[in-house]
């Protein structure tokens, strides 16, 4: 199964008004400081980039560090312009990507 993520936008939004976008990504966000039973360091492994695209442009970008809790959760705002897809894409430090999208209904 590819990197799971979930996305939530309100069922309908008002043109010109900001609405909340919620996203959660399944990822251990390994800090690189933990050790396994044999004392070996578990290497750093994090989602470091996330971008939200809507209405033909990037409307939110995040650069994340190991200080973000596992299974990163984000809430941010976007102004409602047109009905259409809103897409969130992210990438981890191994180059694995994940993507979710939702439809924005502008009323």
């Amino acid at each position, binding site marked *: *199964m590819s990197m*799971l*993520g*979930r996305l*939530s936008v309100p069922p309908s939004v008002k043109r010109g008004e900001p609405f909340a976008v*919620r996203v*959660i990504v*399944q990822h*251990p*966000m390994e800090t690189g400081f933990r050790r396994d039973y044999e004392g070996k360091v578990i290497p750093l492994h994090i989602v470091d980039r996330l971008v939200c695209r809507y209405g033909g442009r990037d409307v939110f970008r995040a650069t994340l560090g190991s200080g973000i*809790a*596992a*299974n990163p*959760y984000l809430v941010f705002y976007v102004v409602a312009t047109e009905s259409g897809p809103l897409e969130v894409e992210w990438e981890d430090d191994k180059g694995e990507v994940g993507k979710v999208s939702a439809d924005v209904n502008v009323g």
Partner: protein
Amino acid sequence: MLRAFLLLLLLLAASLPAAASDPPRPSPLRNGSEFQSGDVRSLQADDFANPMALWVERGRRLWSEVRNGRSCAACHGDAVRAMKGVAARYPRFDPALGRVVDLEQRIEACGQAMTGTAFASESDDLLGLSAYIALQSRGMPLEVSIDGPARKTWEAGRDLYFTRIGQLNLACTSCHDASWGKTLLAETISQGHPTGWPAYRLEWQRPGSLERRLRACFNGVRAEMPAYGSPDLVALELYLAWRAQGLPMESPAVRR
């Protein structure tokens, strides 16, 4: 008149699920989330932000996934209907397997027999299915049977619950009966109910089964941890489920 009254008492006593000599259960019964912080409680209640939702989604997808020509859905149908109330009856004696099993063990056995899938302990797939199935019992009262072949397992669990173990020489009862509600560092000691599992534990930063949580308890009192699948663990789980009977299921929960 007196004879009728005594007869009535005898009938009443015989029909109770637990005999008068059974160990006392906490009173009042308080569910696991009542001993968590406000933040953990609101995280659990938020069906989007609750990290378990990621594993529920995984379980939902796996339910319909075809392996070796079979899938959970092919036999059981729609999980929302077919699995309703199922998790609330676990652990239970499984006649086919000839022993008491918890939900994860039942899924493991089914996966192995039906699709040839071996689920690793605490794997994302196993916890995903467990979380998805357990969700279908959310809010329903935990109600396990300790009759017949399950009785011996319940007794073993009961005995273990009251046995002091580990370097700290504590029994489950020492904290979860004698000291629930009291503070340990910044935490409030719970009554030790199993109603929220599998749960997302912030300490683990991932979900885990009740087996893992109980292993952590053994670790906490500096006792040797029983292996996954150990009869000790499932016996304890059955006893805890009996002890918590009537409490609504909270799975998939969030815990500190």
